[in-house]
């Protein structure tokens, strides 16, 4: 049953899936990496020093783009009601969606980090730290995004509000994830991973409670 749920969620969210648009966050991410050198000029040293941070900001902003279709459509269509009647709790539905959201968004983002690092002229060590940081941080970004998407799903103009709400909640991930760039030891990476794990653990419960509250509204 959960496998069927995950399969549908992936079909909904993976780029090239049924609703289209899944590739947009990726293009947005690459566009930022491409525009940055135009904006600050061709100073290779400056680009290399600040490029890691730019990639992090771009990743965070790209994570906001898919929020709109993450929960609201299914809530409107009554999918979660029908699942509830079949004994699949909102928490399970949200756990499955969290996994699907991360799978649809993070692996491709990590892949796109390579051309982005090349555009910004990052060296191999920095690129590796960025990749590891994103690997540790994207589950947390996905979790924050899903929780906020569920909380705002029943509101008018919820998508725009969701984008604004994600930013402050994602700041800890950004601080430690991008902070790893300036340190030789892996402490910041580990902290990023710890924050991500914590967020992933609580998000199905937050998002599930939000869906139930939306019924009473």
């Amino acid at each position: 049953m959960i496998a069927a749920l995950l399969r549908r969620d992936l079909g909904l969210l993976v780029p090239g899936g049924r609703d289209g648009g899944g590739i947009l966050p990726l293009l947005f991410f690459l566009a930022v990496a491409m525009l940055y050198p135009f904006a600050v000029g061709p100073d290779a040293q400056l680009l290399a020093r600040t490029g890691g941070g730019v990639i992090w900001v771009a990743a965070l902003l790209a994570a906001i783009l898919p929020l709109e279709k993450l929960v609201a459509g299914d809530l409107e269509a009554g999918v979660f009601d029908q699942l509830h009647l079949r004994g699949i709790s909102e928490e399970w539905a949200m756990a499955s969606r969290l996994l699907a959201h991360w799978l649809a968004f993070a692996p491709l983002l990590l892949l796109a980090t390579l051309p982005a690092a090349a555009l910004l002229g990052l060296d191999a060590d920095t690129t590796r730290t960025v990749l590891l940081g994103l690997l540790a941080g994207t589950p947390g970004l996905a979790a924050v995004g899903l929780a906020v998407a569920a909380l705002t799903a029943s509101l008018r103009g919820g998508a725009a509000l969701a984008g604004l709400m994600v930013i402050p909640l994602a700041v800890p991930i950004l601080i430690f994830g991008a902070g790893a760039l300036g340190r030789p030891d892996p402490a910041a990476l580990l902290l990023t991973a710890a924050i991500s794990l914590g967020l992933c653990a609580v998000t199905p419960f937050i998002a599930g409670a939000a869906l139930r509250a939306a019924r009473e509204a």
Partner: protein
Amino acid sequence: MQARLVAKDIACRRGERLLFRRLSFACEAGEAIHVVGANGVGKSSLIRILAGLLRPFAGAVERTGAAGLVDERLALDTNLALGQALAFWERIDGCRDPGRALELLQLEPLMDVPVRYLSTGQKKRAALARLLNRDCPIWLLDEPLNGLDSQAQTAFETLIARHCAAGGVAIAASHQPIALPAPAIIDLAEYAA
């Protein structure tokens, strides 16, 4: 296990308004209830309370057996072909013989049509097919005849009769006449606060 649905002294509040109160009934296996009342009197809310999707403001609902719901929300992926959209729920429900419901509701010619191109009545038939595929003893129907042509209405009324004869329970909120087997009629206006 005998299907049974009991409402004990339930009241419903939406926002600041108390819609109805002190509503009690027991629907035993094989029985059907037709809920009537004007728009906004709380028919849909009652169906959602009975389904366990809304908390009653007061009172309690006891269900023996799984409940299936058909309301105005389709819960099918509109970009998929009808066959694929229904297949998801067949997998969730572990349905082994989806063909029977499709035949009864004459949906077979529509299986390749994307759900968003279906007419209102065809969408309603798709929702009813999902209900049939699930094989649950308690049917909760919110305006089940909306959009159905007279032929499909008769077909569905026959299905309800068969469902009740097999020991099922059916509760339909409908502002239009619906032929249920020996229905008890609940007029929500009598329970208005």
